[in-house]
C-alpha cells in the first residue's frame, strides 16, 4: 500500500514538472499533497496529515490559483 502511494506521488510529481499547462500542474501538486497526507495517516502521524491536507491541498492551491489568474496560464509555443 505504501509503495503504491509512493509510486503515485512520483508519477504526479513528474507530471507536475512536465505539464505545459500550469493549472494542470497546480492541480497535480495538490494531488501530491493529498497522497502525502494519506501516507501520513497510514504511517500513524495524524498531526502531520492534518497540516499537509490543510496547507498543501488547501491554502497553497488557493494561492497558486490566484497567482495564476493574474499571470499567464500557458507557456509560449516556441519550443
Amino acid at each position, binding site marked *: 500500500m505504501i509503495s503504491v502511494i509512493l509510486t503515485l506521488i512520483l508519477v504526479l*510529481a513528474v507530471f507536475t514538472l512536465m505539464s505545459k499547462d500550469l493549472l494542470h500542474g497546480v492541480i497535480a501538486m495538490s494531488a501530491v499533497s493529498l497522497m502525502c497526507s494519506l501516507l501520513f495517516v497510514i504511517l500513524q502521524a495524524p498531526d502531520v496529515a492534518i497540516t499537509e491536507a490543510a496547507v498543501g491541498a488547501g491554502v497553497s492551491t488557493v*494561492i497558486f490559483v490566484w497567482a495564476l489568474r493574474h499571470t499567464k496560464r500557458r507557456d509560449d509555443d516556441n519550443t
Partner: protein
Amino acid sequence: MTTPKTFKQFWGLFTTLLAIFSIGAVLLPIFLNAHPWPTAARDYLAMRGNTDSGATNLVSAIYLGYRVFDTFGETIVLLVSVLGTMGILTRVESLVDASSDDEHTIGTVSGFSLSQEKRRSHTLRTHLLEVVTGKIGPIVLLFGFYVMLYGHVSPGGGFQGGVILASGIIFLALGNPQEGSSGISNPEILVRIETVAFLILVLVFFSGFFMGNGFFGNPLESTQVPVGYIVLLNAIIGLKVGTSIGFMCIAMMGGGY
C-alpha cells in the same frame, strides 16, 4: 537558435531530477528497513512525556514542551513571510501608481487589484459560491477552533487549527456579498489580532522567568495543571497563524491595503 539549447538544458535537468527521484523512491525504503529504528527518544517520551507536560498527545508535548524553540522560530518565519508578501504587494502598488495614470488602479489597494467594479473576484462571485462558502465558513471556523483548543488531547494543535481557521476566513471573505460586511475578513482587524498574538506569545515565553524555569520554561510545571501552558500556547499560535495566513490570502485577492 536559443530555444533548442534551453529545451536541451531543461531536458537534461529533468532527466537528472527524474533519476534522483526514482532512485530515492526505490532505494530509500529498503535502506530504511535495513537499519533498526532508534528507540531511546521514543522510550523516554513514552515514559516521561505525559507526566512532564500533562498532554495526552505527545506530539504537542514535544513541540510546545521540549522543543519550543523550533515553534518560536516557525512563528517568526511566518511573520517574516507575511512581511515579505506585503512588501512585494505594496511595492507593486507604488510602481503602478508612479508609472501609469489610468483609472484602473485606486490608491489604497495593491497593484494586483483593480477598482471595485472591475475586480476579477466579482466575476467569480456567483450565487453558488456565495451560498456554499457563506454557509460552510462558520462550520470550518468552529472545526478550526476545536482542532486548536483540543490539541493536547487529540491530533491537531495550534498550527493545524490556525490553518483551518485561515480557510474559514477565506471562505467568509469569498462568500460575503459586500466587502467588509463581516469583521473577520477585515484586513485591519486581522493584522491587529496577529500582532497582539505575537506579543502575547513572547510575553508568555518570558513568564517562565518569574517561576524560576527560565526562558521557554513552563510556569505551571510544579502545579496540578501543567497542561494549561500547552493549551494557552496552542490558542495563541492558532490565532496568529490563522489571521496571518488569512490576511495574506485576502491581500493577494485584493481585498485591502
